[in-house]
């Protein structure tokens, strides 16, 4: 018995038609077919959803915490990017 872990997969569940798939967690599995079965067994046993995606965790490219200042801070002082400067006409139905 080797103690090497099976590859890690990220699981996404769509709770209802029309909504987005949401990340719910991860599982270990040997391949996509098995990942699908374990995702089903682990994350949909309480009726959480009707559609599943599984993605090899290794295939996800994530932003790094040390890049945070350069990636996200520049957006902080650009409040004019929010659509809050427009006067909404009174008779406009939102």
């Amino acid at each position: 018995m080797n103690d090497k872990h099976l590859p890690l997969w990220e699981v996404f569940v769509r709770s209802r038609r029309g909504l987005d798939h949401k990340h719910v967690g991860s599982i270990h599995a040997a391949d996509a077919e098995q990942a699908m079965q374990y995702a089903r067994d682990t994350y949909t046993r309480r009726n959480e959803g009707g559609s599943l995606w599984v993605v090899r965790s290794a295939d996800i490219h994530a932003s790094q915490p040390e890049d945070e200042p350069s990636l996200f801070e520049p957006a902080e002082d650009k409040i004019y990017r929010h659509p809050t400067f427009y006067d909404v006409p009174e008779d406009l139905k939102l």
Partner: protein
Amino acid sequence: MSALTRQAALFEYVLRLGDDALINGQRLSEWCGHGPFLEEDIGLANTALDLIGRARMLLSYAADLEGRGRTEDDLAYLRDERQWFNVLIMELPRGDFAFSTARQFLVDSYNYFLYEALQASTDARLAAIAGKAFKEAKYHLRHTSEWMLRLGDGTQESHAKIQQALEEAWPYTGELFEVDEVEQQILQAGIGPDAAELARQWQKKVGAVLAEAGLQRPKEVWPQTGGRQGLHTEHMGYLLAEMQCVQRAYPGQQW
């Protein structure tokens, strides 16, 4: 002409199906907390719960058919060994993961074709139960077929273990297709499928998976049988003792 009425045969038949499901579920539930890894542990427990849920529907129905005021719980917890009618393959000890997988694959293949056919039963309640059970059986079979391929076509060690497990379980499969007075009555009344046809479908499916997994189909040997008459292996008493001990120690206890 047979003395067995339709009602009596139906009761016996539904009880057999219920016993098969409950004993198989009980055995499989022994893996809870002992699975080879967390994901498979959850998967096995899910299947066990499906089987126990199926047993509840079938045993409640059997209790209604009997009409003597017994409940599903009475049938599950207050019957002794000789009053159980599951086939022997369900009660065999869980063994190692290879054995549990091989047994479950053989049983899932049987359940798949059985419940597929039972959806067309002339008995409406049984057909409704079969509708639900068939969906589960389809998933169970997918899960265990995958494992047969994975282990059969895996390492030398996994191949040897799953082949050995198949050899051990095989002599118990003939009993699944046995025909007696109850089965005959059930077939005539259009309640259940023809066992010979079930056996053909089962042989074909099992043969295909074994071939793909590179496994040898075990030779036909003298079939182990007796469960439908209430004659069990020595393992059954221990299983019942564990399953029934709380209700036996504290009769009528609820929580």
